[in-house]
């Protein structure tokens, strides 16, 4: 049995890790734009990738979604929601940009 105070410390460590990672990732994204070298498209791709990574960090360290069995329900829920939302967003963008292209 793990002692209460150890658990507490490890939990605090989780939050600290999350916080530091989040700060680093945000800083990287802002830096990529502030000192932009790449083309706009690839700069935006970098920003999006960093955002995705940071979201994962949040889910993992702050929202406690993990691959452990006990959190499986929540994980499945989040993944399913992501699929549906992704479908809706991607569909919307594809359709509306196509329409726009065909109508000017």
């Amino acid at each position, binding site marked *: 049995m793990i002692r209460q105070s150890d658990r507490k410390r490890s939990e605090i460590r989780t939050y600290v890790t999350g916080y530091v990672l989040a700060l680093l990732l945000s800083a990287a994204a802002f830096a990529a734009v502030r000192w932009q070298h790449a083309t706009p498209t690839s700069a935006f791709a970098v920003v999006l990738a960093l955002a995705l990574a940071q979201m994962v960090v949040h889910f993992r360290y702050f929202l406690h979604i993990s691959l452990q069995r006990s959190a499986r*329900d929540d994980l499945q829920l989040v993944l399913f*929601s992501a699929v*549906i939302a992704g*479908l*809706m967003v991607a*569909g*919307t963008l*594809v*359709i*509306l940009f*196509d*329409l726009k292209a*065909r*109508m000017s």
Partner: protein
Amino acid sequence: MTDGILPAVLGRFEWQSLPFVRAWEHPNASEIVGAGAGAVVIIGAILVAALITRLGKWRYLWSEWFTSVDHKKIGIMYIVLAFVMLSRALIEGVLMRMQQATAVNSPGFIAPDHFAQLFSTHGTIMIFFMAMPFLTGLINYVMPLQIGSRDVAFPVLNSVSLWLTAAAAALVMASLVVGRFSTGGWSGYPPYTELAFSPGVGTDYWIWAVTLGSVGSTLTGINFAVTIYKMRCAGMRLMRMPLFVWTALCTSILMIFAMPPLTVATALLALDRYLDFHFFTNDLGGNMMNYANLFWLFGHPEVYILILPAFGVFSEVVSTFSSKQLYGYTSLVIATAVITVLSFTVWVHHFFTMGQAADINAAFGIATMAIGVPTGVKIYDWIWTMFLGRVRFTVPMLFSLAFMMTFVLGGFTGILLAFPPLDYLAHNTLFLVAHFHNMLIPGLLYGMLAGYHYWFPKAFGFRLDEKWGRISFGCWVLGFYLAFMPLYVLGASGMARRTQAVFEPSFRPWLYVAGIGALLLAGALASLFVQLWVSVRDRKANRVFAGDPWDGRGLEWSISAPPPEYNFAVLPQVNSRHPFHDGKRQDDPYAPPRAYEDITLPRNSMTGPAIGILAAAAAFGLVWHMWWLAIIGALAISAVVIARSFARDVEHTISADEVQRTEQRWLRAAANAAPIPRELEMTSANQGLAEVSA
């Protein structure tokens, strides 16, 4: 002096907002019909209120019903709401058919503006305030019983959802008495519904009614999904859930994810109208295509929200009345899940004609057709369920059979519409109207009616009259075919939907037939009312207190009819898909348990009705630009929510003694009832105890 105050208080209300004043000033048929409808609403409300006062039932209604958080009572209230709203929408449907039948090369008796309000209210009510409450009510009543639970996961939230829906429905009713309703159809396409083209209150009524309703449905979806996920009784694994529960789960998932697009669409439209945003306006970069896209992101899953619970009902009914296990349980579950997921991938088929590339149209057309496969699987599974069974032609079973044969036709016209080129021709014509009534009436409505006949004895303790049920069934089927088959022909001849007058004499015979059909459908509804009346009158003879009138299979039949407040004295434990059916054959399901325990249930709460009333007031304020009312309403709602979070004494306990008394009364009745064979289930010999055969 009144100059400043009155407008601030009354917003944009003026005398001409009252249909009576309008009818007085312009006494033509159309305005008089409008005033008449308004009068019916007012007089009806006054009569009901007077009757309740006379009987001294206000306190009873308030404390036993309105503030109740019991899922069974909430379910019944939902269905009563559906019934009230349906009566109005049905009359509107019949009026539209009469108008079109009389308006061939003549103006008919309903002015264009009024006709537009008719199809808009009819569609809005039928979808949001008839179909949704009906299926929500049915799930509310039945699902917790089927999974062996004492209530849903969030009983108070359940009551809030009910009252939000009721508030939204009240708003639609209010539009009959003050102001007008939208003329933009149930889909409310801008820019027509923007301020530039629809400046009046109508669109605002529509926006807020639909928004409140969709918030209510989202909350309901969350509630049901969590209930099914977390509150199943011991041993009820997912693959042991009755099919109705499966469909309820999938419908809830659809509600959770498909209602938000609607909320976004109506909210953005409201921003355009109230705060001069430019999402869907013609000018300043607005883009109405985004509205169509958002609306149908909701709209298509919505039609499966409507149909899935009906599929669940048919699964239960066909199995029970064939005295047989459901054929292909697993494939039915898979089919349901596939339909759920696919329904998020086809929304573009509602605007194939907007001009996108052939690749996109074709991809979405193919996805649409794919839904035909799991749907067909379901139909065949029901056919094979009857195969090698003993089919009893009770009213719910008749509805199921009529459904299977008629729904297929609607499904086929759906496949036709899924071909973009064919849709270019049929879109916006009566062909489409025929398609969706062909899905909604034989699918959704027959399903709900089958469920109503099937579970009514469970909810009220007596069976519905069989003879009037059959009469009504006959009218439903014949009426449907007469009313809607002609519309396929008219649509294929190019007659546009939503037309108030017709200029083609050769359409006349078809319009007549459709009119006759609509009258028959009105007759069908009337016979349902007669049936209810006759059944209540003869209820003594048709008692089924023992609780199992149809030789049922699921847990809901294992308790008394009507069930006690706490549903199950002892939470059940199951080890098969048909626990009660097997239980009856293994040992005595009417043996008392070893011991009774105290049961804790949530206490009644005013939260739901309070939020409903405040939401209705706030929405009304928004519609009429009475800002004070809107602000007070919104603040008061927050206050109620916060106050509720401070409530602590939220449960009450039923003592073991009381449970025991209630249960023993039932067990004694079951012991005294005669077990009856299936041949006699429609006679008054049926007291709710089934003769157990092999």
